[in-house]
């Protein structure tokens, strides 16, 4: 998982001509990102065909099985553990296609494998688009067009794709430097491996980045559509809604300071009417309409299993299996003690206050209220990163694929972070983050493969240690976001 800053090329380094060539023009970066994924994809095909240990992620087999059910006119939820929107199974329908009879056996085999890999290609392509969007957002600057003075130019700039006057804004970035930071995502071996193994997280990356791009470039309807769609796809992007809404104040969208020059008297009603701007209502309407119409459609098509597997499962799941979450040991302990058929020892004997029943409180207070309230108007990308980081850190379940959720936002924050200005601090943070996982993974390995009972204190302490490291990093991000 050692994938962040040290692996990322340093854009300032003039000594390395290779690196500057890589980032000076778009082509070399995107071609190498493409080649990285192509090599991994082909290697994966080779390993799958020649080794009983598979490169392909188990989730990919779940998706493609579900797609096969769909292709037969059945429900994707006929595949157990398919816990995603049916759209994912529809997208992967080409994985069920096979070569026609006119092909020879060898050609047919190649065609079948190619079709089966369609999903991985799609996820890898989503990675590249997400990376390109990262570059666009960085070039655009965190608050483009930031000042009222640019309000008049807004329309013309939009038509030109926002290329004009970039260097004038304080936060806009030189494209080659932007590409260097986008490389943290594009050339990240972890990201490339996850998508070429067939995990769908790359799709989320492109959706979130497109959402941010749409918001920053004031494409409100598109932003609403993307927000509604991504929440339908994976729920967690709902935490971005308050930040975006809070950010979209009148001055930003119309260039006018709301209530400026008028009397300072403020009443609740006036504040409310000031708050309920047309763009905000438009965003709320388009996102809710997208979300509910998609859900309504899926419910009509697949009925209760859709609701159960995609949404309700997250309410009823026990999450007793070991994962990075600080709550994990507690959840295992309490899930066993509520079961009436077993006596689970002393801990279960007396009914105790259950700390985990309030777990959603710090998580949601931070990620949906306090962080967006404090940071969104100052620095929207950093706010989104901090929110995602808080959501993942305080979640009741946490696995390494969740790290991708904030990794895609990292290149937007890093250039102005304390972790970048002080390289030592950055290395310490990265080192602790990797070490925290390493300690946990070592304990998990002893449990999973050697059969040692490392739940207590090993795994528990390791997950708390990792949690503390994450909290420290989050605190620094929050502090940076305020500057």
């Amino acid at each position, binding site marked *: 998982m050692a994938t962040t800053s040290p692996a990322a090329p340093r854009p300032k380094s003039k000594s390395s001509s290779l690196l500057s060539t890589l980032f000076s023009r778009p082509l070399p970066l995107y071609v190498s990102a493409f080649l990285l994924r192509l090599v991994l994809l082909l290697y994966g095909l080779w390993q799958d065909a020649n080794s009983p240990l598979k490169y392909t992620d188990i989730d990919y087999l779940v998706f493609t099985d579900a797609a096969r059910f769909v292709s037969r006119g059945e429900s994707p939820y006929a595949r157990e553990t398919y816990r995603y929107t049916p759209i994912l199974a529809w997208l992967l329908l080409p994985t069920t296609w096979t070569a026609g009879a006119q092909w020879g056996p060898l050609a047919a085999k190649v065609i079948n494998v190619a079709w089966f890999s369609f999903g991985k290609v799609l996820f890898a392509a989503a990675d590249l688009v997400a990376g390109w969007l990262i570059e666009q957002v960085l070039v655009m600057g965190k608050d483009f067009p930031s000042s009222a*003075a640019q309000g008049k130019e807004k329309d013309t700039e939009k038509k030109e794709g926002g290329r004009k006057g970039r260097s004038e804004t304080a936060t806009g970035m030189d494209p080659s430097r932007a590409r260097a930071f986008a490389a943290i995502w594009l050339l990240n071996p972890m990201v490339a491996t996850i998508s070429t193994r067939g995990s769908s997280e790359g799709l989320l990356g492109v959706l979130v980045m497109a959402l941010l791009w749409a918001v920053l470039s004031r494409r409100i309807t598109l932003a609403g559509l993307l927000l509604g769609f991504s929440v339908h796809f994976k729920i967690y992007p709902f935490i971005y809604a308050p930040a975006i809404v809070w950010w979209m104040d009148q001055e930003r969208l119309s260039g006018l300071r709301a209530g400026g020059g008028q009397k300072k008297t403020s009443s609740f009603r006036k504040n409310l009417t000031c708050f309920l701007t047309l763009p905000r209502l438009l965003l709320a309407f388009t996102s809710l309409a997208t979300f509910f119409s998609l859900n309504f459609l899926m419910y009509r098509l697949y009925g209760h299993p859709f609701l159960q597997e995609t949404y309700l499962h997250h309410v009823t799941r026990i999450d007793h299996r070991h994962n990075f979450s600080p709550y994990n040991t*507690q959840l295992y302990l309490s899930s066993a003690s509520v079961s009436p058929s077993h006596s689970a020892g002393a*801990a279960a004997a007396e009914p105790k206050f259950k700390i985990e029943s309030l777990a959603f409180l710090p998580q949601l207070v931070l990620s949906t209220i306090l962080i967006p309230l*404090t940071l969104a108007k100052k620095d929207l990308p950093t706010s989104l990163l901090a929110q995602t980081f808080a959501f993942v*850190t305080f979640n009741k379940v946490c696995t390494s694929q969740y790290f991708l959720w904030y990794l895609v936002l990292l290149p937007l924050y890093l250039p102005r972070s304390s972790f970048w200005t002080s390289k030592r601090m950055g290395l310490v943070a990265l080192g602790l983050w990797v070490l925290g996982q390493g300690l946990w993974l070592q304990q998990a390995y002893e449990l999973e493969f050697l059969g040692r009972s490392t*739940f207590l204190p090993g795994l528990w302490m390791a997950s708390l240690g990792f949690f503390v490291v994450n*909290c420290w990093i989050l*605190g620094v991000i929050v502090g940076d976001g305020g500057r």
Partner: protein
Amino acid sequence: MRERITFIQKQGDSIEPTTLKIKGGVLNGPEIQAAREDRLTIAIDELPTDLQALLGTAHELHIRYVSSQPYEAITPLLARLPPGFHLFYTPAGQANATSPALCLALNQIFGNVQCENPEKSFTTLPRDRFSHSAAYQFYQPSVDLSPFIALAKEKLCSSSKDQSCAARADRLTNASSLDISYDAISHAVKLTATWPYQKQEVHATSRPQTRTEVGVLNSDRPGHLEPHELGISGLLTVLGQDKKPSATMFAFASRHRDAESSFSAEFLEPTGLHPTLKLRLESSKPPIEDAYCSPHAYFTLPKTVFADRHQLSDDLFLASKNLTRLRYISQPVDLEAPEYVEKRWGSSLLLELSPPEHEESKSWTAQVPLHLRYLSPAEGGYTDIQVPYPAVFWACAAEEGTKFPNNPFEKANLGYDGLFGPRTVFWHVEPRPTIGSRLSNMIKVPVLDTNKAEWVSGGTGLAVLLGFAWIMWKLFGVLSKFGYQNQPSQAAEVVKAKKNQ
């Protein structure tokens, strides 16, 4: 009530008719090396009313208890099942599938049978192709036979003073198998107990109102024997009726045969949370030539452990484990739930094994990848579970047109027989453990140690609270310094204000 007592010797071990002494309903004979089978057939109206009522809810019910002590099977008592308590059940109406009556009765008769009702606790068997399969299956690795033995004494022995009857009931403790079989068509319950091949005295006593038939038999090979048939010869006596035993010889088609080889099963170390069971088969050669044969392993896995059918669908993976394919797995198998929330007894699966292709027979292994469920936290951090041996057999196709009518020693409804076509013959491989003396393997499962769990709740709460407080502190710092407004636009406003001046 009818009783049939059969002593079965190996081929060539027959006894002289004169050695059997029959006197007033008592038969005595020499001590011989033999297996023994006792079968009691009880008409439904001879049963106590509560059991009558219970069986009234069943279309068919087969309970098969198999001892975990290894035993040598003797022709024709060849059908094998994994050791443990098996139950096959077809309710008379669907309402009975949700009624707890059967489970309550099982708990009374056998003690500690972990079931709530058939719908929740049993698995369903496929009934599309072969209708002779029961609707539901249940299994658990062990039961306590003592309540059943007490019940048998109470109901079957005429008085508490009948010591020989009580002793016979007590001998059920040593039985290698016990079958209780009922179906609505025959309107009778058959109790069949078998004891392993060992030295024992030929002895039988008739019981009042019971026709008792005693056979001292041995497997034989009469001249006209067809390849799919077994031959039996020996002496039959009906107690209280015959003055001397009558010689007999007969042949019958049997779906269960002896492959005359053995296997053992053990887990690869370390077991971890994903144990692999290694089957070692003594022979790689099919039991018969000129027939299509392939070796199979039939597992009944308690809910503590399960196989993932998706993992067992990849040909390369299967081949690397010397498996051909997963022929059947009961559905559904939850791949995530911990043991303590899982209501179903577990799962059954049938794996086709892939023997090495060699001219001469040699020993070989197949590996079965399994997964453990999380178990309840326990003191000390470990819980031992037992994983029973599978039943291993070569399934061979009999010739076209071969019929297998019921035979006097036939067992049907074994869980796996319904998964094969009606012409399949099962050549059983004898389980012979190399480690320990039981037909099951123990796994030490790591669980959360309740002795150390004291601080988990408080510690977790404290850590979360501290982390939360730190971030709140940082947020408060930002808010108190800069407020929640947009910094650059405020700056822009300042610029605007200056311009206006």
